[in-house]
């Protein structure tokens, strides 16, 4: 067990290092000039050269990477050009809103996707199945940007059921001290109902848009996995033995697809954590996705490399969690 864990950790380290190296090399090879972002377009040659040297960009690529890797090991990501702040501080600021949004979205994705997939499998070919498939199709194929804008027009502008872009109304800005960075939790901890309500009304719509995409994937795969199980002989045997359909469905068929389902859910969550840049843009959500995208567009390499590493780490950790779940749920893999 210890050896297996060590092997896995070694594999994680190699994966992250390779990811870092690849991103760094690609970043340096791209014809993007990060110096302009610092000095401004109208800067003189002298200033440009001075800042370029200060940023270490006059050094050979290997030395630049070596310095960066050393900084990484010591937890120094450097400062971001786009905010002028340490990247680590930026990540601490932009990650909680994304985790909050992604987790809420995932809860909706699971809450809608799993029951919808089960119903679609049970009533395969019938109207419930068709409705589930249409919802899945919309979730998959409708552009997030469009869905977000339509959601705003209908539920915010026309019906007024939810609040608009942003995490909170300006009237409540600063009313709750950030403890966890998760506004809903901070409002709960502070017992500030007004802020909680306001934050809730702001997050519901973007989380639902994200959740719809996740629900589409989860529902489609739940249906497919379950249909496969329901066609197996052990299901017929169980029914022949007199077990109730509900027991056969949940204790046997659903239990058998739970391992695959968890993998799907974990990876879907990882994709949401990576940052839903379009959703964050439409809903003016100050999250990781927009930060990463802006860093890329301005050639802010410190931020880009740190974000890449974070995204890589998210997937590595999520894969590890999926593996762990496999082992817990499926005795054959232990």
């Amino acid at each position, binding site marked *: 067990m210890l050896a297996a864990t060590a092997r896995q950790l070694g594999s994680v380290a190699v994966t992250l290092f390779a990811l870092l190296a690849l991103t760094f090399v690609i970043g340096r090879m*791209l*014809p*993007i*000039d990060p110096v*302009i*972002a*610092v*000095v*401004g*377009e*109208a*800067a*003189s*040659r*002298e*200033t*440009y050269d*001075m800042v370029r040297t200060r940023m270490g960009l006059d050094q050979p690529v290997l030395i630049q990477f070596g310095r960066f890797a050393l900084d990484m090991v010591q937890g120094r990501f450097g400062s971001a050009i*786009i*905010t*002028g*702040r340490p990247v680590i501080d930026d990540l601490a*600021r932009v990650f909680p809103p994304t985790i909050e949004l992604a987790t809420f979205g995932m809860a909706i994705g699971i809450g809608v996707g799993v029951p919808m997939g089960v119903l679609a499998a049970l009533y395969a070919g019938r109207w419930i199945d068709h409705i589930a498939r249409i919802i899945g199709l919309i979730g998959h194929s409708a552009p997030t940007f469009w869905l977000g*804008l339509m959601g*705003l*027009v209908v539920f*915010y*502008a026309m019906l*007024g059921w939810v*609040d*608009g*872009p*942003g995490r909170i*109304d*300006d*009237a*409540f*800005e*600063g009313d709750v001290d950030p403890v966890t960075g998760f506004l809903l939790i901070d409002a*709960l*901890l*502070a*017992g*500030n*109902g*007004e802020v*909680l*309500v*306001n934050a*809730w*009304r702001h997050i519901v719509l973007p989380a639902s848009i994200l959740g719809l995409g996740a629900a589409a994937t989860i529902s489609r795969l739940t249906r497919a996995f379950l249909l496969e199980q329901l066609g197996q002989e052990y299901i017929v045997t169980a029914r022949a033995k007199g077990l109730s359909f509900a027991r056969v469905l949940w204790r046997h068929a659903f239990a058998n697809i739970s391992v695959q389902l968890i993998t799907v859910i974990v990876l879907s969550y990882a994709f949401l954590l990576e940052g839903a840049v379009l959703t964050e*843009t*439409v*809903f*003016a959500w*100050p999250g990781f996705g*927009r930060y990463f995208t802006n860093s890329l*567009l*301005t*050639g802010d390499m410190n931020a880009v490399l740190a974000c890449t590493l974070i995204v890589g780490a998210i997937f590595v950790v999520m894969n590890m969690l999926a593996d762990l779940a496999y082992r817990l749920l499926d005795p054959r893999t232990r």
Partner: protein
Amino acid sequence: MMTRIFAALALLWANSAGAATPKDALVVAANIDAVITLDNAQIGEIISDTIFTNACNSLLQVDPKNATHLLPSLAESWTVSPDRLTYTFKIRPGLTYPSGNPVTAEDVAWSMKRILWLNFGNAAQFTAWGFTAASAEDDFKALDATTLQIRMHQPFPESLFLWSLTGRQGAAVDRVEAMKHAVGNDYGNGWLKTNIACFGPWKLRSWNAGDSLTLERRDDYPLEKAKLRRLIFRNVTESTSARLLLEKGDVDFASGLNAEDLKSFEGSTTTHLARRTLGETTYIGFNALDPILGKTQVREAFRYMIDYDALQKTVFAQSGIARATPVPNYAFGALEGAEAQPYRLDLDRARALLAEAGVTEGFTREVISYAYSPYLEVAQHLQANAAKLGITLKITPLVSAQLLGRNRAREFDIAVLNWGDSAPDSDAMLTRHATNPDNRLEARQTMFPAWRMSFFDPWFNAAVPAARMEVDVEKRRAMYHEIATRFMHEGPNAYLFQGVANYRLSNAVKDMVITDSRVIYATATK
């Protein structure tokens, strides 16, 4: 604790209406992603400049009613020596920064020297007058606590120099506070990137990068105080989102609205439109080192391939005024009317000009452009019309850093670009666009678009500085007319549209000052 949590949860399930903007705050929806620094030595983007110049007073200010008339601000009075080589400013006594430190003439002098010492892009605002980092100590001097003296190297027209002190480079930075946070020789640059330490009607309350920036009224501001307590910039990068927020009353002021969203407000009874022309131009640059594009007639031919009328009605319907000159329409010496835009789509004329240049065969060139509107549409427009003359243009959309990198390295054929300078004088634009101190590649005079285009013409190099030094106002105006007209036809660029900013405001907002030179939030009431 649990009781509080349950109380909050109970309220959550109760249906509550969304809150409107606070009564004592002005909420602005704007794209503040571009705010990467609040240090006036380094600020380059319009939005950062807007925030800084609202928070900080400069030595002088532009009269909102007349962009060429100056009013006192930090300086209560000023005198200019008869030889125009010495400017003396009397700083208002008794002013303090938010830190409590007094505002002194030494601070103002230091703030200006600091810009030169740090030598970011804004240093050009001083080097253009002959000041250098080495001469700064002698050029900017505090004679006493309230008297600032600036020594010129050349007798420029005084209105021209004085106007330059109305912008961010004329602000007083809190020297004591900035130097408390200095690291090495950065004169507090690292700290001032995320802080504002100056004298003005607002102070920085918070800046959550990518989310919001809030200025708070200084109640101890001794001049006319801001009417509202807070000025909140909410980062809204998507036009439709900004529109919906304004419609629902969740913001008071929306900027960056696209043509479609602006149009949707037509007939609105709850909001109104405010527009201002910007000192910003969209243009097509041609690399003069190219054997074909280097020919004056070929560049002139391209100008006749542009359908200004069609672009005005579509891509630039709300966001631009057709002008074939880089000088903004409100600037001193600017061309007006048909003189400023004599071109129309005329492919026969373009064909004749190409033949005149000896270009009878079709050719292929690359056009680099920003990957978004309106630049990409301009590139496509030129591509379609050039194709009718057998010219193949291959468009490469690029992100900003890529595009500017290639432009600054002269690694392009044709580029769709923009350039901004809000100075209300022809000199500002013509100095950068028409003159080129040294055309050698290794000279890398990248702050001059003329150098980037490899354009070098001794006539312009002589004519622009001569106009700058001319004291006779009418003669100077005539000189700029001649330079601008000649540059329009012989220069390396095809200028298309002067930018127009469109703002949509809630009718609840009153008394805001929106002029060509700036937007002033301190006067706004609700």
